């Protein structure tokens, strides 16, 4: 088991080192092969681990990183069902995306660099989910932030892309700060950052302290998983190559926050306030991002806001106590959102780099494989019954209703928004007439097999992914819940869903009705559109401009900081602090020039002064000292 794990973790590092150090000497194909093989090895190792891992999980220690008086950090990994599930998602989807990238990035000269970064990312992500302590999780946490930075800014010669990368990193850092503070507080209370202290009922802290720790940890999750108010980096992160968006900004990295909360669920359940707070933030994010997505014209932006919104759903699930539902949605979302992003990448590829859906239309004939797989993705995300998205979202909505009906109605509206914007995207892209240029139409072609193969695999997963946990209504069995039960205590399962059967039927029926209505409405609206307006007015305009959040942040945070910086450096530092030093110097010069006139060359005068000084000193001693 140790060897397998070591191989699992180190394979991406080896890939990273080969591609990073000798990439310039390798051919593009070789880089891609090396990069993908590394992840394939990891994936196979993960699969091998499934058999050997005991139910309670096993902690595997390699060496001691740092041992100090009051702090110990081992390079140890905790392999249990939760981390194994995450590792499968990461390496599995990671491998597919590597495969896809080999085709997608074929024209880019920085291919080896790209694969090096991707491998480094997988390594960091594995560290994040497999590490056996919060410190190791933080290692991965910041590591994936770095890779995200590097990959968003992959085409760094474009200043805007580089800016987006910086923004992502800095916003993540804000979250990391919260995470770090939470870690310190945790360390102080429990004396260790190892997960082994996280045993339910053994955490002897006040609920206030629990709230403080969990809130701080959640700040970290807000940054990494793009929740309000720290979500703005994620849409900008679409500047990166599309496989990156699929891997990092949809399937894996952004779900780190969810994983972290599920991992520390024993702690989070101790603070009802935090749970409520998480649910509220999740719900608000789901709605907020959902509304923004309604009027975006950039295909990747729509998907980005949809990701933010879906992440909000996951947090809502966690907040209401349905940890496994959150994890379940994480998994299904990883499937269909990766699929959607890769599909979008394929569309962009076909459209020679065009990302604006206002310039697309009617693509279903030219790129059938992309169309069909994309359609499956859309169906999954909007919740066509029995697709994976339907099952997992259904579970979250159920749990939410048990938590608070009010939250449920709002969440349902959020789900409705999802249906609307996804269908809008779907219709505008694949139906109607082509609205792009002539050249684009001529160049249009279906992507090569190594790009469509991942699409097909993911499409299958998007459909069947839900079957592991069909609602009991349809005689399903919660396999996932059972599988995760050693790690996660599902609160909703405790309450039982028996009394809710009627409600579940109502929800199912409602979903179908809404879906049909939405199909009809959106098909009417967007199905045969000849042209799409690029600018919206009124509230739609506000939505199109993302509620002007970036502008507000810019005005409230960025500009003031810049002004403070200039003020401090130009005025305070230069004029006041240095001025003081300057004045001291000036005073010395001035006193020198003034006092030298006392030196008038008259010996008699000197002598007189000397006598007077002697008199004064002696007199002072006589009067006050003796």
């Amino acid at each position, binding site marked *: 088991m140790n060897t397998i794990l070591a191989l699992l973790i180190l394979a991406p590092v080896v890939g990273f080192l080969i591609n990073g150090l000798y990439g310039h000497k390798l051919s593009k194909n070789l880089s891609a092969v090396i990069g993908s093989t590394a992840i394939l090895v990891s994936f196979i190792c993960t699969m091998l681990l499934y058999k050997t891992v005991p139910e309670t999980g096993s902690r595997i220690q390699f060496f001691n990183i740092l041992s100090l008086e009051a702090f110990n950090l081992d390079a140890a990994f905790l392999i249990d069902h939760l981390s194994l599930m995450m590792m499968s998602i990461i390496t599995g989807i990671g491998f597919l995306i590597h495969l896809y990238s080999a085709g997608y990035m074929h024209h880019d000269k920085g291919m080896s660099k790209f694969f090096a970064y991707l491998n480094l990312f997988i390594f960091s992500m594995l560290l994040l989910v497999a590490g056996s302590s919060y410190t190791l999780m933080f290692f991965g946490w910041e590591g994936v932030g770095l890779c995200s930075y590097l990959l968003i800014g992959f085409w760094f010669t474009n200043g805007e892309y580089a800016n987006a990368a910086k923004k992502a990193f800095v916003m993540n850092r804000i979250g990391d700060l919260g995470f770090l503070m939470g870690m310190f507080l945790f360390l102080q209370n429990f004396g260790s950052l190892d997960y082994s202290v996280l045993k339910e009922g053994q955490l002897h802290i006040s609920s206030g302290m629990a709230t403080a720790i969990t809130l701080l940890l959640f700040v970290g999750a807000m940054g990494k998983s793009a929740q309000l108010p720290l979500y703005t980096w994620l849409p900008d992160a679409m500047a990166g190559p599309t496989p990156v968006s699929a891997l990092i900004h949809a399937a894996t990295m952004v779900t780190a926050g969810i994983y972290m909360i599920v991992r520390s669920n024993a702690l989070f359940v101790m603070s009802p306030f935090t749970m409520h707070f998480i649910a509220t933030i999740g719900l608000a994010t789901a709605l907020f991002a959902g509304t923004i997505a309604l009027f975006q014209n950039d295909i990747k932006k729509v998907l980005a806001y949809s990701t933010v919104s879906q992440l909000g759903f996951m947090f809502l699930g966690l907040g209401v106590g349905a940890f496994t539902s959150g994890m379940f949605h994480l998994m299904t979302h990883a499937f269909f959102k990766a699929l959607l992003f890769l599909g979008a990448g394929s569309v962009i590829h076909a459209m020679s780099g065009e990302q604006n859906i206002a310039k697309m239309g009617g693509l279903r004939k030219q790129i059938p494989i992309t169309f069909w797989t994309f359609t499956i993705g859309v169906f999954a995300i909007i919740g066509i019954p029995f697709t994976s998205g339907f099952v997992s979202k259904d579970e979250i909505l159920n749990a939410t209703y048990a938590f608070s009906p009010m939250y449920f109605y709002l969440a349902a509206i959020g789900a409705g928004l999802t249906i609307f914007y996804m269908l809008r995207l779907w219709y505008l892209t694949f139906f109607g007439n082509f609205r792009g240029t002539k050249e684009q139409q001529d160049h249009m072609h279906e992507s090569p097999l190594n790009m469509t193969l991942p699409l097909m695999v993911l499409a299958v997963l998007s459909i069947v992914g839900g079957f592991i946990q069909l609602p009991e209504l349809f005689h399903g069995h919660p396999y996932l819940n059972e599988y995760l039960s050693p790690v996660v205590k599902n609160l909703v399962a405790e309450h039982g869903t028996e009394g809710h059967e009627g409600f579940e039927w109502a929800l199912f029926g409602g979903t179908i009705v809404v879906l049909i209505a939405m199909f009809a409405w959106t098909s009417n609206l967007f199905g045969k559109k000849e042209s799409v307006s690029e600018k919206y007015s009124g509230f739609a305009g506000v939505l199109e401009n993302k509620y002007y959040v970036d502008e507000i942040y810019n005005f409230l945070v960025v500009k003031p900081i810049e002004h403070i910086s200039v003020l401090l450096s130009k005025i305070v530092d230069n004029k006041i602090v240095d001025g003081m030093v300057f004045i001291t110097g000036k005073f010395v010069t001035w006193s020198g020039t003034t006092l030298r006139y006392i030196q008038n060359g008259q010996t*008699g005068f000197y002598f*007189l002064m000397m*006598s*007077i000084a*002697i*008199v004064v000193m*002696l*007199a002072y*001693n*006589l009067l006050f000292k*003796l």
Partner: protein
Amino acid sequence: MLATYAFFFLAFIAIFFALLVVFSKNPIHSCLYLVLTMFAIAGNYVLLNAQFLAVVQLIVYAGAIMVLFLFTIMLLNLSSENEPVKSNLIKFIATIGGGSLLLVFVLALKKTDLGPAPLMFPNPNQQGMIQNLGKVLFSEYVFPFEVISILILISLMGAVVLGRKDKKVNPINE
């Protein structure tokens, strides 16, 4: 008893002529008064049983140094006519300064405890005798003694160099 009277007499002489040194207009007179003061001090040395020093005082000060002064004054042909004078204000301030210096010294002395106060006379100590001094000087202080001879030599040369008539080493005029 005799020594006591002698002390007061010599003290009076010394102070009186010292004042005359300072206040007489003519430098030659000043110089001669100074010789008298030196004599008075030498007398005091005798009273203090420091005969060797008394003799040296007479030879060096009254004999050598004062002659040097007189020669210089005469060489420069100075008299009371071309005597520079200071303004009265400065004289006044100076007098106040000197007076208050004396005052402060005296006050300081009054406040100082000098310990048991044996009479100065009669003085049984014999270390002022030339034999004793010689022993000390050529045993314990032989090195400073030799060094001081070098100093004398150097000052001799310095005086010669300075007093030489040489326009070229004349920084003030040029």
